[in-house]
């Protein structure tokens, strides 16, 4: 139910409420899954998807029918890995082989696992994992190979981290390690998805030749989550912010949360955000390679959410105190904008880049670099959707009408337009002259009339010079002003008398 707090929030943020209503009433899925044709095991898979994913389930279920099931199963496979990796109640001796052989379990229609701790929220997925395997074996061979490959590599990567005592005790050390970790948990997902899209002919195959683009897609999402979740991860004793970064600001990681280190924490935060922000232009580049609407929505929604989350975190100390997340209203309006076309997503990125830029402070050690990163996003958008080129210089700018030797003379329309502009300019000037002239004339007449009837401007100026800007209120004040003035301008006053 809607809590009183959120009711109050949306009462004061009507635009966000509008976005929620619009999204829930107007959004039509690009494709809808046909439940009638689904068998029991597949239905069960979608139930597990709803159970384990809050944000992804919706976009996955709207995917193109060709990829609907493969991507759903891909998600469940990775979620299964994650559930094993995350569970600290599983002994490493058990965990390591499970992770490394998970790609085999994925095909084994009899394999299930009930070794998760009772508090593990996604426990049920592994308990019923045989349904996933049954569906997986029905999928096209090419898709299966991609999913297996990524699952195997991610499982091995996770096993390496799980086994690494040093990593478990001290967290991520260098920026390189940090990016490698993000590569295993997100960059690989980006690769897997891209290969699936290209295989289904729903994305430009050129994306596979630019692996840094799909890597950035994953890195951007993962880094944003790691930045936002710092408080929660700290409480769970998991350390993903690289020591190479935070050690520049504090000696112990926990010190970031001390109130006296507030400024240091914010400086450290901005360095982390900068690192993620540098990936944003490559994410836009990637999205330009997607051909099909449902796939576009699938990749664009999380990216828009991520840049909005970065903006929410930037220079926001609340992030160190509690979990923060973008409001549901913002999320809905972002989803509306991310389910149409690349230009709107670019607008989202530019809007949030400018918001970040506006909060950027010169006291921050990364001030200029953040400004450059925001500028880079804007400039990249200009390369996809130019607002100006040599041929289409903005109309009305005199650059359109330059006469360089050898250039064709102005076209008639241009000359006409120029003449009109010129006339309009002079019209404005004449009106201004008339207005100010009239005002000036009236002023002169009034002042002259006042002078004619004996107004003493010299006395008035004299009083102003002495600092009496307000008219005197009491008779005493009048007389005192008069006496000061008269003593100064005795000659004048006498002649008056």
């Amino acid at each position, binding site marked *: 139910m809607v809590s009183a707090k959120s009711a109050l929030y949306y009462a004061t943020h009507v635009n966000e409420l509008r976005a929620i209503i619009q999204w829930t009433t107007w959004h039509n899925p690009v494709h809808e899954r046909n439940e009638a044709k689904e068998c029991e095991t597949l239905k069960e898979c979608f139930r597990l998807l709803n159970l384990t994913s809050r944000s992804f389930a919706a976009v996955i279920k709207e995917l193109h029918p060709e990829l609907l099931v493969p991507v759903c199963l891909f998600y469940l496979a990775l979620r299964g890995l994650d559930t094993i990796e995350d569970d600290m109640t599983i002994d490493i001796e058990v965990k390591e082989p499970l992770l490394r052989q998970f790609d085999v379990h994925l095909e084994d229609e009899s394999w299930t696992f009930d070794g998760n701790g009772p508090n593990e929220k996604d426990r049920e997925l592994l308990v019923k994992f045989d349904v996933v395997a049954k569906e997986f074996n029905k999928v096209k061979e090419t898709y299966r190979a991609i999913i297996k490959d990524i699952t195997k590599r991610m499982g091995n990567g996770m096993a390496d981290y799980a086994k690494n005592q040093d990593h478990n005790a001290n967290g991520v050390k260098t920026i390189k390690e940090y990016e490698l970790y993000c590569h295993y948990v997100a960059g690989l997902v980006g690769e897997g998805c891209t290969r699936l899209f290209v295989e289904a002919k729903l994305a430009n195959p050129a994306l596979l030749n630019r692996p840094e683009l799909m890597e950035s897609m994953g890195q951007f999402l993962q880094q944003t989550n790691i930045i936002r979740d710092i408080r929660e991860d700290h409480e769970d004793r998991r350390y993903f912010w690289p020591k190479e970064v935070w050690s520049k600001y504090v000696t112990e990681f926990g010190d970031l949360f001390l109130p006296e280190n507030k400024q240091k924490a914010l400086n450290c935060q901005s360095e982390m955000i900068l690192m993620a922000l540098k990936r944003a232009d490559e994410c836009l580049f990637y999205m330009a390679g997607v051909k099909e609407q449902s796939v576009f929505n699938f990749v664009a929604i999380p990216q828009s959410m991520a840049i909005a989350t970065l903006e929410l975190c930037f220079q926001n100390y609340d992030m160190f105190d509690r979990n923060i997340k973008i409001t549901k209203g913002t999320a809905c309006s972002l989803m509306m904008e991310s389910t149409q076309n690349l230009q709107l997503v670019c607008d989202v990125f530019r809007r949030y880049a*400018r918001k970040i*830029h*506006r*909060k*950027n*402070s*010169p*006291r921050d050690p990364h*001030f*200029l*670099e953040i*400004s*450059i990163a*925001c*500028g*880079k996003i*804007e*400039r990249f958008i*200009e*390369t996809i959707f*130019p*607002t*100006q*080129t*040599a041929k289409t*210089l*903005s109309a009305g*700018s*005199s*650059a359109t*009408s*330059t*006469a*360089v030797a050898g*250039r064709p003379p102005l076209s008639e329309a241009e000359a006409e337009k120029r003449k009109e502009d010129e006339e309009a300019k002079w019209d404005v000037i004449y009106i201004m002259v008339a207005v100010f002239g009239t005002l000036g004339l009236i002023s002169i007449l009034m002042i002259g009339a006042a002078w004619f009837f004996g107004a003493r401007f010299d006395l008035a100026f004299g009083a102003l010079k002495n600092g009496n800007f307000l008219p005197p209120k009491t008779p005493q004040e009048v007389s005192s002003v008069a006496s000061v003035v008269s003593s100064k301008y005795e000659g004048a006053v006498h002649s008056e008398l």
Partner: protein
Amino acid sequence: MATFKKDEKVKSLGHVVVTGGSGFLGHHIVSLLSTRGACTKITALDLRTDANPVDGVQYETGDITNYDAMLSLFQTLKPDAVIHTASPHAMNNKNHDLFYNVNVNGTKTLVRASQEAGVKAFVYTSSASVIHDTVSDLVNADETYPLIMGDDQPEYYTTTKAQAELHVLASNRTASHPNFLTAAVRPSGMFGEGDVQLLPPGLSAYYRGQTKFQLGNNENLFDFTEITNVAHAHHLALAALLASHDRDASGLARPLDHEKVDGEAFFITNDSPVYFFDFARMVWAAAGDQTQPSQVWAISKDIGLLIATLMEWIFWIFRLGKPNLTRQQVKYTCMTRYYNIDKAKKRLGYRPVVGLDEGIRRGVKDALYRGVVVGQPMDLKGKKEQ
């Protein structure tokens, strides 16, 4: 500058003459080429000799508008290449004859003398303003934009730079001198150590206490270029011209149209456009400014123009000279002006070697050290470390 080391086997540029070699950019080119050991010999040519000359560089004084003097100098020196940076200061001078004489006549004289003395390559320092009418926005502008000069160009200085550039590029591979190759570099918003036009006036605004004001919404991106990068681009352009010259000499085919450097102009920037006031704030912060974004009072462009217009009138009526705020300043600070430098990246292999951040820190320190900032605390002058 990690890409170039003295002992690396890089083909020498031979004997290079740098005109304006004691000026802001010329000095940096001379010192960069010298540090890199890129030439067999460097001659710096200027009206005056350098206040802090670079070791191992020959300094010559001479007037580039004097054809006889230039020809005899070049015939004596027999340079392989010329980098032509000499130009009068654009800001402090309204002398049209001087601009025309130095920029157009001087350049024509140098080109002719170079051709006749058998110079192989000629790099001309143009300006990124040659495509700008001083009013319109330039958004990711590239070299396909037309030159703006004559009546359409309010800045006469820019007209003369554009005319000189046209002449230099037209002199590439002419029928009479087919082995004389030319290129033009168009830097945008140069700043750095030794700078008098950008950082010192910017810093003065800080010492006058103007850091809490902002004109416009500060969403306009602007390109600035650290001076070492501009020098680096000249080095690359010259090396490319000489390489083409050598290809011609050894009978190889000419470079293709999309890769040729000769006869071409190149925009050069730091490849990182920033919001105009962010650059200024970084400069101020480097000098110690503590202003927070929340303390800044933003004046919209229209209000700024109105105030500037009123001030210009008042100052004009009472003959008070130049006001603190002019319409041109308002327009410049609210203008978007950045360039697409893909051409320089692809054909010259250009990448900035000094970042904006580092460049600003160095440049600000240097400006205060030299004591050229109006209103600066004079105890910073001549002080090495702050």
